[in-house]
């Protein structure tokens, strides 16, 4: 069970412009210390998958390679989210600092910001920021350099291995794993790839120490996180909240009084109906957290005016288009799910065809090559399970 109070935090956007001091502090400490801080803080990747950040850096620092890379994933493609954009325009130095620290720790000389094509307008300011940052680095005798790479704008390029494929000039399609980027990443070299928010949190941890971060949140889900709140809410926007809150608390604060469901984690996430608000917490799945839903940050509220059939159809249309198309379960599965629910709605297929589709989502979850195809199952099964009548009548 989550806590019964929703704590708003102000760490990420708090304007603290002491880059030089923090960098100096970081560069004075040993790599081991820094990694221990990260691990001790409990920070997990804020992209949604939730891999422990400290461990990722540690693995990459131990991996063998003459060259290594740090990539900041700024390919924010989830519909309705723009928190990374805000971070990059308001507090870019925090992200750059996170990258430089990572570079020092793993032994990389080069970092990239993979910037979503739609965010190209950020480039001039960001470049200025990077130039200044390089000067600071030079004074610290660091030759770490950061470059901006403009992405081509496919949703799948947010997936780390597709992102690297696209950086290497190929079509953005997920790679087979293992090997993981920590061993064989960009150009075949060990690579840390973190999203924008994760790197900004690393800054907080290096500045305030692991305890301040760890004290936020609950077991297995430490720290704060940015949420993009949208849908039927009077207060849409970006909020930094403590992890582990219950969905009921969230709806109390952000709903419009008539919330019937919340989609946690966007199209790839789970839809929670009103009757489960209380027992559902927002955070990473863990042994001690009960029903806990991970999220990249997107929270979408639906009130009783919404047709959940349309909601699901929108998601499926999105996936049917954004699947990279390379693997069978995802490419064909998405089409079958979409056309399948349409057929049931029209009456061309019997109600129990929905069960067949539910089984199909199982297969997709088990066999799809990457997280995209695997997670289509989430929104599908949670919506069909909880709003079955709306799918049929």
């Amino acid at each position, binding site marked *: 069970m989550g806590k019964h109070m929703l704590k708003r935090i102000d760490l990420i956007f708090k304007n603290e412009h002491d880059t030089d001091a923090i960098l100096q502090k970081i560069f004075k400490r040993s790599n081991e210390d820094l990694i221990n801080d990260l691990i001790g803080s409990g920070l997990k990747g804020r992209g949604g998958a939730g891999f422990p950040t400290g461990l990722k850096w540690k693995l990459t620092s131990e991996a063998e390679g003459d060259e290594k890379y740090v990539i900041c994933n700024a390919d924010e493609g989830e519909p309705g989210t723009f928190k990374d954009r805000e971070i990059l325009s308001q507090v870019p130095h925090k992200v750059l600092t996170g990258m430089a620290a990572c570079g020092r720790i793993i032994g990389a000389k080069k970092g990239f910001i993979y910037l979503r094509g739609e965010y190209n307008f950020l480039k001039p300011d960001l470049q200025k920021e990077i130039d200044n940052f390089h000067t600071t680095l030079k004074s610290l005798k660091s030759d770490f350099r950061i470059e901006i790479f403009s992405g081509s704008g496919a949703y799948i390029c947010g997936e780390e291995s597709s992102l690297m494929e696209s950086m290497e000039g190929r079509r953005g399609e997920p790679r087979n794993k293992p090997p993981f980027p920590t061993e064989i990443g960009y150009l075949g070299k060990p690579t840390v790839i973190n999203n924008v928010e994760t790197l900004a949190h690393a800054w907080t941890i290096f500045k305030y120490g692991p305890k301040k971060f760890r004290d936020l949140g609950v077991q297995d889900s430490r720290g704060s996180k940015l949420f993009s709140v949208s849908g039927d809410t009077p207060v849409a926007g970006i909020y930094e909240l403590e992890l582990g809150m219950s969905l009921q608390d969230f709806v109390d604060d952000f709903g419009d009084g008539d919330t019937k469901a919340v989609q946690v984690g966007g199209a790839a996430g789970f839809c929670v109906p009103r009757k489960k608000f209380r027992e559902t917490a927002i955070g990473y799945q863990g042994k001690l957290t009960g029903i806990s839903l991970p999220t990249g940050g997107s929270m979408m509220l639906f009130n009783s005016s919404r047709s959940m059939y349309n909601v699901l159809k929108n998601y499926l249309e999105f996936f049917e288009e954004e*699947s990279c198309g*390379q693997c069978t379960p995802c490419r064909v599965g*998405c089409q079958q799910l979409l056309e399948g629910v349409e057929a049931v709605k029209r009456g061309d297929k019997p109600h129990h065809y929905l069960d*067949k589709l539910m089984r199909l989502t199982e297969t997709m979850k088990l066999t799809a090559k990457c997280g995209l195809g695997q997670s289509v199952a989430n929104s599908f099964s949670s919506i069909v399970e909880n709003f079955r009548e709306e799918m049929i009548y």
Partner: protein
Amino acid sequence: MSKMVNLKINGIDVSVEAGTTILQAAEKLKIKIPVLCYHKDLCIAGNCRVCVVEVVGSRKLVAACATPVSEGLEIHTNSLMVRNARKDIIELLLSEHNADCTKCYRNGNCELQDLAAEYKITNQDFLDLAHGAYTIDDLSPSIIKDDSRCIRCQRCVRTCSEMQSVGALSVANKGSEMKISTFFDRPMREVVCTNCGQCVIHCPTGALIEKTYIERVWDAIADPNKHVVVQTAPAVRIGLGEELELDAGERVTGKMVSALKRLGFDSVLDTDFTADLTIMEEGTELLHRLKANLVEGDHSEPLPMTTSCSPGWVKFFEHTFPEMLDNMSTCKSPQQMFGSLAKTYYAKKIDVDPENIVSVSVMPCTAKKFEADRPEMRDSGYKDVDYVLTTRELAVMIMQAGIQFADLPDEKYDSIMGKSSGAAVIFGATGGVMEAALRTAYELVTGREVPFENLNIEPVRGLDGVREATVKIEDVLPDWKFLEGAELKCCVAHGLANARNVMEKVKNGEVDYHFIEIMACPGGCLGGGGQPIPTNDAIRQKRMKAIYDEDLSLAVRKSHENPEIVQIYKEFLGEPLGKQSHKLLHTEYFERQRY
């Protein structure tokens, strides 16, 4: 010695080298895991997902073809979970597929069909997504692309870009629209495609097939006014058996000839004859170029000289290295030499109006269809070669005719252009042209046989992508004084990716070869795009052995000793590179666009 890893598959212990995939480990235990996007020749894609297996302790299934083993792994290849998932995947593929097998060229030899049969896919549960909004591209003279039969395994894409470095095929669009496409979706005949057909033999389904001319050949045979002659390439006789239920690597020359006669061809002749002729012309051209360059300082026909008998290679060269076109031998390929002689020399000999001759060839190659269509290939005054059939198409005709191939007696080729030497036979393997040319050129220059045991020039044989050989020339005949002590540097490359590498080096002056043999297909014609499916390295090996065995079995093993060759020069052609030869046996090349 690399590290060994222990694991369990279906309860059986196995120990394999680190880096092995689950698929390979299972193979070692003779446990079959179905595959579709996987092909032994190609890099791993892991995208069809039919090879999924269960790893104990993992929440997801993993692709056996793409997952390396690790210590202590416990795998189930046949659990309920695995079977259900696989069945779903096959059904999904079929739901997107124009699965009208009875109207499909690959009916009976299709990996998707086999899987559907194995898993007994009989239900019609999923919705039919094959909306029929596909166009079939059949404008190329060699290859038909039918997207409605495509399962998006990307084997063709990997073949074309990795093995051939052509990149004519690529993946376009995403999601449900994802498909295999060409530059701006232009028809295959308008892009850099070399027609090599490697994508065809690597495609598991009927999405890429050769353009077939079977019906036209049947029509010609049935026409009493036509004299239909057929020529068969060196590599057909060692591949054909595989299509007709014999083992890979069985030599079926005699049966093939007898089958062709029973099909009703008026004359069954041998492309090997013109392979010998190619050696005469190309060997002489090489010596001529050496003389011009080394003695006279005339670089208008530069060195190194590259072979020109592989039409896929020729077209690749025209697209890729237009500035070096003069390096290509001007000799036509044996097929086209045969074509122009069939409607001149041969027609005269048998006293038939060339107008009424239909010249058919059976080739291990799809690019030969394109080559026969080149506008320059009309030196006889007619289309030199009317129809080109692949090894596979000939097998189809034999089956259609109800011929029991395995029981056929051996028969001999007809005469006039039916005799050949062992040198011609080895044209079917990479390095063969080089070896054959050296056998003749060396003897021409020194009066002695090439100094290799049994005439077998081993350094140019084998399946390595690029091979080199140096032949030292000593004690030459007086006419060839300028070659005394020279070292003839030769290079053999097969597969267009290897060809590109070699030619880049030539272009940058990093190597100083005199003579380069290039075959577009891996293994040369024996692995050609028109050969039986499947083709992989193990099968190539067997076909290669068959070819070298055939060479050894022949009495005449040097082109210039073929009596019919001696005769044609005496009666008709005059001498190699002479006026008549030039008109009928040589050609020219053109720069082509690069998309």
